[in-house]
């Protein structure tokens, strides 16, 4: 059903966001622990990067319908 798609998208977004945020957070923590002497900025950086990536993904996903993909364009 078309109405469930949005919901699904949001689920994906959320899941993705959580994943990315978590991954970013983790990486950030790892990197901050490993490489950057437990500073917070790699955590925030990476979590932020993760969140941003999630946001971008979400947006892209949500927009995907309106965008003509290259394959379609070419076709």
């Amino acid at each position, binding site marked *: *059903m*078309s*109405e469930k*798609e*949005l*919901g699904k998208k949001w689920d994906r977004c959320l899941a993705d966001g959580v994943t990315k945020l978590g991954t970013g957070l983790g990486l950030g923590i790892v990197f901050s622990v490993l490489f950057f002497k437990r500073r917070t900025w790699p955590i925030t950086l990476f979590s932020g990067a993760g969140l941003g990536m999630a*946001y971008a993904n*979400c*947006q892209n996903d*949500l*927009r995907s*319908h*309106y965008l003509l993909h290259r394959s379609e364009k070419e076709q």
Partner: protein
Amino acid sequence: MLRVCLRGVKATARKNSGRTRLTNLQHNRGYTAGESSGASRVVVAGLLTVSGGVGGTILYAKWDHKFRAAVEKNVPYSEWLLGLALGPAPQDTGLPIKKRMESLQPPSMMEKQMRTPTTKPEKKLKETAEHPAPDASSALVQSAQSIQEASAEATQIISAISEVQSVPAPCDTEAAATGREDCKECNDHTVAMEPTAVLQKTDSAGTAEPLTERPVEEVAARLAQQDQEENNVVASVSASLEDSLASSAQATLQAIGAQEAALQAIGQHTHKLKEAMEAEAPSEEKSTQWKDLETALADRTTSMNVAKTALLKANEALDSLKSVIDKSKGLKVAAARPLILAAEENLHKMVVDLDKVVSKVQSAESEAKIVAQYSELVNEAKQQFHREVSSLTPEIQANWKGLTGKLSTDDLNALIAHAHRRIDQLNRELAEQRVREQIHIDAALEQQKLEDQKALEKAVGTALQHVKEEARLEQEKKLAELREVIEAEMRTQLRRQAAAHTDHVRDVLKVQEQELKAEAEQVLSSKMLEQETRYRQLTQEQLDNFTLDMNAAYARLKGVEEAIDSHVEAEEEARKAHQLWLSVEALNYTLKTASAESPSMPLEDAAEAVRASCVDSDFALALASALPEKSLKRGVYSEASLRARFYSMRSLARRVALIDESHNTLYQYFLSYIQAALLFESQQEAPPTQLHSEDLDAFKLLSYASYCLEHGDLELAAKLVNQLRGEARRVVEDWLTEARLTLETRQVASLLSAYANAVGLGTTQAP
């Protein structure tokens, strides 16, 4: 009440004025007082106006009645008030008087009407009363009946006018009385002219009269009655006559007997007296003679008295007989005439006899008178002589004849001398008498003549009377005979006339019969002809009708056969249509099998069935194949499920209302979500007939669609939802397709059912 009101008004006015003065005075004192007085002033003013209004209305109502009526009609309880104030409404005094006048008029009119009918029958009666004089007796009788009829009519008219009751009685009796009088006259007339009336009636019975004739039986009855009456009268007359005759005869006989006896007694007495006068018998015989004479005298007197009384009685009887005869004459009954005549004859005879006897008695009496006179004279002379002798010789006794030896010579001489002197005297008287004889005789003759004359006259008179009476009787007898003869002749003549009349009538009747027969024959023949032609016409008509009916029946039969054939076809068609309809119904039913969430059964079978049942109808085939594949394969969703889905979808569409190709960042999503949260639109809104550009807002569209869905208009809802653009459109895409599918299927199904219905209607025959 009005004055009370006025007084109240004045009092309130005074009070008001007083209060206003007070208030004016108090005005300076303070507002509070002024305020309260102001309020009271207001109240008082209001009361004043109300009372003034009421009083004014009452006054005006008194003056204008229409206004009063209007007020009473419109304002409740005003009647009571106005009634109290002015008394009851003056209810149109003009009209009732008029009504009374009108009601008075009809009775007077009716009286007049009644009077005119009464005068009319009276006039009729007078007119008819005048008629009896000139008209014949039969007309009289009939006019009497008409009078009776007229009186009956009058009474009918009068009785019809119900109000007037007292008048008909006198009118009726009047009419009846006049009728009766007339009838009495009629009766008398008829009784008088009875035989002529009878014949006239028989004559006039044949002729048609304007007045109704009495029926024959009535006439016969009347005649019989009259005859009977006559007979009764005759019988009574005869009886009375006989009675009186008998009594008078008896009385006359008695009288005659008495007279005869008297006559005899008188005769005897005179005879005896004569004897006594003339005879020179010895004294004893003389005395006996005298005694006899006395007895005879006594007898004579008694017999005379008896005769007188008998005569009186006889006269009375005869008078009564005469009166009876007169009365019976007065009755004027023809049959009694001979009786009357006989009675009169008898009367006459009796009268004659009585007169004869009376005359005899009278003559005897006169003779007796003469003898008595003679005897008286003789006695007187004797007496005188005796006195003379006694004067001369007082000692001598009465009977000087027996004195032969007792007288002395002196006495004798004296006696002789006296006798001589007496003789001389008597001679002288005789001479004188002889001288005067003639004169005396003349005088006596004269006297006798006179007496004779008187007697003659009397006798002549009585004889004349008798003769007159006899002549009259003779005349009457002759008259009676003549009358009889004439009657007989008349009867014969009338009989002859009647015979002639009957002959004539017979002839006339024969002729009439002939004529009538001819007429009747003619009429009969014409009628027969008519009947025959009619009969022929009727038969022809019948034949024509029959042929027409036959033709019609044949045509109908043909029509019926055709109809039946067409019926068969039509039934086939109907069956097919029914089949189609059933299959379409099955299709509809399968459509309804959609539950809340799941779609309906696949419509494959139903569609197959439909296709099977409409093999020869391209339209139906086309329709059946127009069903979308998906519905066939999968089935369709029901409207209810779509509705439910729509509501869940609506919120989603609201949320992504701002998102379209150009606006689809996450931030836009965020804004869209906030917009959805903050924007309140009506849940349902009726869509306008024309969508303007501002209506293309998602929220509005959704509310329109919601409204349509709520009202069961899926199509319009789908249309409206179709107007969504952008992400909202993408979200509702599926719902839209489903809705489209459902709509399509439903449309096809409805078309098919309409087609099936139409075909079914077309083939079904109306009852």
